[in-house]
């Protein structure tokens, strides 16, 4: 296996590992740009994964599973909104609480319904999003360099992968080219000004959380019914936090979010690949180094070494109309 094949293999792995991060980080982007910190991304992903796996199993249709995942994720978003917008509670506390609820509830319900230690039964056929083979793969495969890249990296992914990459420019367009996006960004920076203009801060923030819910649902569905074929206890395995790190690393901007997620996915793929292999000159590198890198990089960024990460000004502060 030559170096190019290894490179192609790692790139393919990078794409697969980045998709849940991209969806989740974009979900976080919408809520945080509207001034609602969302530490509950992990819980949304997990709950959505569970709902998607259950519904896909029962209905035998992946799309119904996806809708179920989105529904549950929106529900979690709205609970977060009710606690932190309507009741002006602490956003971090509400988010952490939702994470715990998701982790516990999925296992309890899964155990009660399916009796498989919290797992859901395996999915086959239409209950999963199957890989899509793009046209012309067989012809392209023979072309040097581009051929293997097209066949192994660009083609052969499932529909959600392409939707994730479509969601990035769409998010950019919504945030920077629509009236809703302008107001959403404004409400995260200076809600009082938005309020003065006669726009409801609470309603705007709720709408931002709806978008967060939808994207979180995609992330969960990808985990359970596209990448895997069942829900498994705690299968999000910290991806929500990595996505949060990616969001900060990308300084709350949609296109950099994609690149940050791809970078973190790449590190994960390299970690998987490097296991048990030794590098020339250095020897065997513990995989934990690669697994810790996303967090290390984010810390370095926050310490001010790679530009300045400035969060939305009104983030984390409940809006009170009059003091």
């Amino acid at each position, binding site marked *: 296996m030559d170096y190019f094949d290894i490179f192609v293999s790692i790139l*393919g792995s990078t794409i697969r590992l980045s998709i849940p991060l991209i969806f989740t980080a974009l979900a976080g982007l919408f809520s945080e740009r509207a001034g609602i910190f969302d530490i509950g991304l992990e819980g949304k992903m997990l709950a959505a994964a569970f709902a998607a796996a259950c519904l896909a199993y029962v209905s035998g249709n992946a799309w119904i599973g996806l809708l179920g995942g989105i529904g549950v994720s929106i529900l979690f978003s709205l609970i977060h909104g009710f606690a932190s917008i309507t009741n002006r509670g602490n956003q971090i506390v509400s988010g952490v609480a939702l994470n715990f609820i998701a982790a516990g509830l999925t296992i309890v319900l899964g155990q009660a319904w399916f009796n498989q*230690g*919290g797992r859901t039964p395996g999915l086959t056929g239409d209950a999963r999003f199957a890989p899509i083979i793009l046209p012309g793969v067989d012809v392209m495969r023979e072309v040097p360099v581009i051929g293997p890249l097209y066949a192994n990296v660009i083609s052969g992914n499932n529909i959600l992968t392409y939707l994730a990459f479509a969601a990035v420019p769409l998010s950019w367009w919504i945030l920077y080219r629509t009236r809703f996006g302008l107001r959403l960004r404004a409400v995260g920076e200076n809600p009082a000004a938005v309020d003065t203009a006669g726009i409801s801060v609470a309603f705007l923030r709720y709408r931002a959380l709806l978008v967060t819910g939808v994207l979180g649902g995609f992330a969960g569905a990808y985990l359970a019914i596209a990448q895997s*074929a*069942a829900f498994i206890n705690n299968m999000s395995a910290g991806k929500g936090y990595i996505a949060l790190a990616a969001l900060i690393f990308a300084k709350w901007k949609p296109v950099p979010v994609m690149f940050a997620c791809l970078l973190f996915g790449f590190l994960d793929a390299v970690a*998987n690949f490097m296991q048990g292999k030794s590098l020339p000159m250095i020897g065997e590198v513990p995989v934990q180094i690669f697994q810790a890198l996303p967090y290390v990089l984010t810390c370095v960024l926050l310490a001010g070494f790679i530009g300045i990460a400035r969060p939305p000004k009104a983030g984390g502060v409940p809006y009170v109309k009059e003091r």
Partner: protein
Amino acid sequence: MTKTLLTFIATAMLSSTALAADIKPALVYGTGGKFDKSFNEAAYNGAEMYKKETGTEYRDFEPTSDTQGEQAIRNFASKGFSPVIAVSFAWTSAMEKVAAEYPDTKFVIVDSVVELPNVRSVVYNEAEGSYLVGLLAGMASKTGKVGFVGGMDIPLIRKFGCGYAQGAKSVKADMQVFQNMVGTTGAAWNDPVRAGELTKNQIDQGADVIYAAAGASGLGVLQTAADNKKFSIGVDSNQNHVHPGSVLTSMVKRVDLAVYNAYKDTAADKFTAGIQSNGIKDGGVVYAVDDDNKALITPEMKAAADKATADIIAGTVKVHDYMTDNKCPL
């Protein structure tokens, strides 16, 4: 009221001691869950087998976290259950504590050793079983490359990998064996996504038979192998049915027999403590052949596996046990 209740309890206790053969068996699973299609399910099947045969009800508990094991074992012991079987090496320290507190209760631990006079420790020679499936993998491989995906990076799992590699290399000395571990914490048993990526990685490098010894993460290995039209090998209980036609075979640890025998021995008052080691010779580890994989195991493969079995029993083939020296000689 209290007096009637006490009398009632006393009569109940008397009547239970009167029937010597009537046992109150209990079973504590590992954190993988009862229906993990693997290790724990095998234990469950053993208990069900005993229940069906004798009509004796048993109680079981599924701990969902590492901290619940001790509580569950103690709970059963304090309520008078005996024997209490704990399946998973994770309950070793819990068993050491609780078994010392209840010297009259009989305990069984599977996959680990607890040296107490009232504990039977059932261990398996997974290296021998893995050697057999490694041999089959080596014969089924067209690329001359096979893979192994382990769960948590512990000596027990390295033992699987080492025996497997030895078996695969017995087919062809230059056989390439890729070995990966899902992780270093308990979460590694429940991470099918990472296990699947590791599998894909090995497939990209040319492996066409991948052996999973990773608890529930192993389902990710079997899934990825099936998605990529490669062979996989299941572990602990017969997993051939998970993806028929793709799962080449399974390395089965007869945990069901261990559970069944423990109950039966106790009922017949023949319970023995101490280490009970099960290898190929005792039928404790086997490779599974059933309707789902009959077509995949060619007569040559079967003959080679039978010969290897005979050689291991005769001692002419020595399968290295990683846990004896924490090294794999390959």
